[in-house]
């Protein structure tokens, strides 16, 4: 006999499965059609890697992809460096005056709508570009580093808060200098948090559309803004292929992120 289960609400499972299908069906369709041999986006013409080849051979795609990676690597490196220092500064010192202000500023990119930051940067960088004559990638790297800071900061802070302080005390008892303690005790414990934060920052930077679209100078398309430009004209299966490749990269990095942050829970 089936036991009465009050948690089984009628219809909920169906809606849930429907919602999960809704979440995955478009993505799955996109992935499948990126391997389509036919030019049509709706008709299946057999398996082929031609759109991947077309995308990889397209000079504009190559340049945009390279630019995306350069910006994302720089932003992840800068953001995780400053975030690491800020996390050390705000987590270990008790509640000091102004700590909430620091939290607020660091997390500000999570709260302000991206379009607002984008037009604000457009206004400021437009005058700086005129005044200095410099129109390089620096603006994009600066903007990306800034909005990546909270993503790099939060995992490091979580790691620091869960850390056993007695390890540092033990190191000090064994005559380690503060620097040696940091280098050989604190930093190795923090490493997964730093790596996880840097990875999130990399993904966030790689995915950014709006701020990049407003800050970039002419001819500075990243992969997402290149795709946005393509979508405005006509949809080509090439965009399917680029999207699928980006999706694969995101899934790989996120799996790595979950593995890195999971280790903390399994530790005795």
């Amino acid at each position, binding site marked *: 006999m089936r036991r009465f289960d009050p948690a089984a609400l009628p219809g909920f499972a169906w809606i849930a499965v429907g919602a999960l299908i809704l979440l995955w069906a478009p993505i799955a369709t996109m992935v499948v059609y990126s391997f389509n041999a036919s030019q049509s986006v709706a008709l299946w013409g057999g398996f082929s890697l031609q759109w991947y080849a077309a995308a990889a051979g397209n000079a504009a795609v190559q340049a945009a992809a390279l630019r995306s990676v350069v910006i994302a690597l720089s932003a992840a490196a800068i953001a995780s460096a400053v975030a690491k220092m800020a996390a050390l500064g705000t987590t270990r010192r008790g509640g000091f005056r102004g700590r909430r202000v620091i939290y607020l500023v660091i997390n500000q990119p999570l709260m302000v709508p991206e379009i607002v930051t984008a037009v604000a940067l457009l206004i400021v960088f437009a005058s700086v570009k005129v005044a200095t004559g410099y129109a390089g990638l620096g603006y994009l790297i600066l903007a990306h580093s800034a909005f990546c800071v909270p993503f790099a*900061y939060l995992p490091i802070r979580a790691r620091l808060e869960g850390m056993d302080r007695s390890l540092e005390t033990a190191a000090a008892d064994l005559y380690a200098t503060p620097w040696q303690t940091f280098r050989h005790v604190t930093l190795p414990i923090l490493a997964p948090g730093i790596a996880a934060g840097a990875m999130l920052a990399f993904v966030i930077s790689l995915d950014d559309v709006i701020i990049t679209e407003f800050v970039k100078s002419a001819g500075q398309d990243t992969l997402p803004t290149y795709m946005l430009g393509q979508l405005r004209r006509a949809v080509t299966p090439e965009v399917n292929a680029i999207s699928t490749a980006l999706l694969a990269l995101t899934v790989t990095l996120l799996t790595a992120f979950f593995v890195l942050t999971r280790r903390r829970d399994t530790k005795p």
Partner: protein
Amino acid sequence: MTDRAAPTPAERSGARSGWLLSAPALLLLAIGATGPLLVIVVYAFLEKGSYSGVQWAFSTEAWFQVLFERDIFDDTVTLADAHLTILWRSVKLSLATTALAFLLGLPTAWFIATRPPECRAVWLFLVTIPFWTNLLIRTFAIMEVIRNGGILNSALMGLGLIETPIQILYTDAAVLIGMVYVYLPLMVLPLYAAVERFDMRLLEAAHDLYASRWQALRRVVLPVIRPGIVAGSILVFVPSLGAYVTPRLLGGGKNMMIGNFIELQFGQGRNWPLGAALSLILLLVVLCALVLLTRLTQREAEE
């Protein structure tokens, strides 16, 4: 708490090194995010330039233009219908997105939270991956599904349900479908966190007291998971209101939302002060929503 006491030397040095260590991050954000926001405040009170940009003269014209239009010939003032339509559409679509996301999200969160513990991580991963997938890619994916020659219309025509494709793309409905699709994970994740902590024995107690399933849901479950509902609603409402990519791709040029309208002022519209004023309005609404969220969830924690 030692909040009120005078800081000891150790506390003072802790505060100093705290600020010093945070300084690079604060400087980076000041240049790349917070500072420029202050510039927007200034721009919203300037006169618009003749070609683009601004003239450095104080003016509240931009704020006036958000709601009103001045006739260029006889200076009569009328309500700016086009602006109001866009603002109303933004609010309407964002509220509808939040409501639909809740109706889909609650059963999904409930379903995942009532799976056996060892399976939950896998189901949750199914929601997390779309959540982290590029918004542009997901918008593009749903666009492919609902376009005239897309799968949805092909399937409906194949089944003989419709004769000609339904025009969904470039309508408000397309923007709504797209926003529900891209923001649904933001509703499911906080709801899941709340449902997972929900004590199922409360439901058994409700049944023992002859509550119907619907009564138990409405009177027992919903009040207990309220912080999750509030968090999920704000997390969906805030990005919906500021949405730019989804309405631009799915709504076409005509069905603008406030994000696209702001962009227009910095592009073809060449009215930077109006764009700055609209940005500030959007920012204020979002900040109010966030303050509300903090209040509601804090009160819950204190109770």
